């Protein structure tokens, strides 16, 4: 059974690892914003958020900041995720799910290629 004391080991390990997020250059941060209003949650935003957290950790993407927001504005296209690059370019992905998240992480966050087929511009095609 896990106990809270194990957290001290995590702490010790992380303190040795100087690459804590605060050290990152703010200019290189990519922001991932997941819409978590009632309609987003009902449509499946929680597993989408959790998949981003998991993928970002597994791939060690230190320059990616996953956050959440309330309503993004288009209920029928939820779950919605916005990705904002350090230069301020925004891509809006719609009707997301965990599988789509894996692809977006690999293509967009790692290789810097927008996954056009999941974007809002392609939503009604």
């Amino acid at each position, binding site marked *: 059974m*896990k106990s809270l004391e194990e957290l001290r080991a995590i702490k010790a390990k*992380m303190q040795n690892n100087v690459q804590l997020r605060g050290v990152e250059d703010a200019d290189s941060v990519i922001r991932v914003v997941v819409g*978590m209003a009632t309609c987003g*949650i*009902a449509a499946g935003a*929680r597993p989408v958020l959790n998949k981003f*957290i998991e993928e970002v*950790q597994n791939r060690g993407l230190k320059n990616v900041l996953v956050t959440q927001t309330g309503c993004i*504005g288009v209920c029928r296209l939820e779950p919605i995720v916005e990705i904002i690059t350090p230069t301020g370019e925004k891509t809006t992905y719609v009707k997301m799910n965990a599988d789509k998240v894996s692809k977006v992480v690999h293509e967009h966050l790692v290789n810097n290629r927008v996954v056009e087929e999941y974007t809002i511009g392609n939503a009604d095609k």
Partner: protein
Amino acid sequence: MKELSLNILDIANNSVKAKAGVIEIDVSESENADIVSIDITDDGCGMDEHMLAKVTDPFVTTRTTRKVGLGIPLLRQQAIDTDGHFKISSQPGKGTKVHADFRLTHLDRPPIGDVASTVVSLIFASPDIRFLYKHKTDKGEFMLDTQEVKEQLGDIPLNEPEVITWLTEYINENLQSIEGGKI
């Protein structure tokens, strides 16, 4: 909502929006008493009587992006539809309490679902809020106080991925030991 744990996430997000410093989430499930209940208490901005009287009406919201608030009316309806009860009380400047219970064996009762995932999403998004999560079953009781987690971690933020992963496992292990969250 497909899972009660999603309602919990949604209602607790209201507390986050209300600038709460402490949010308490109590889940209790009892086959013996045939009831599942959820209590969410915060010390946020609260609501005045006027707002409170209207808040279960789906046409009430202080949000600006659309005209209806859905979270509270939805939870209320789900409770009532399963022979349960809903209650909300609030005081401006003091905080808000939301209670919902459901008849455990009612055919329309949604499953409790992944509460660990809900609690962890909340902590991840608001690492500075103190969350108290209590979960009770006929077998026992489990409590997580993020203040205690913070005391162990010192200056390491709660939303570091390693910590989040650990918390998820910790909650799930404890829930298993009291056979919680399975119904």
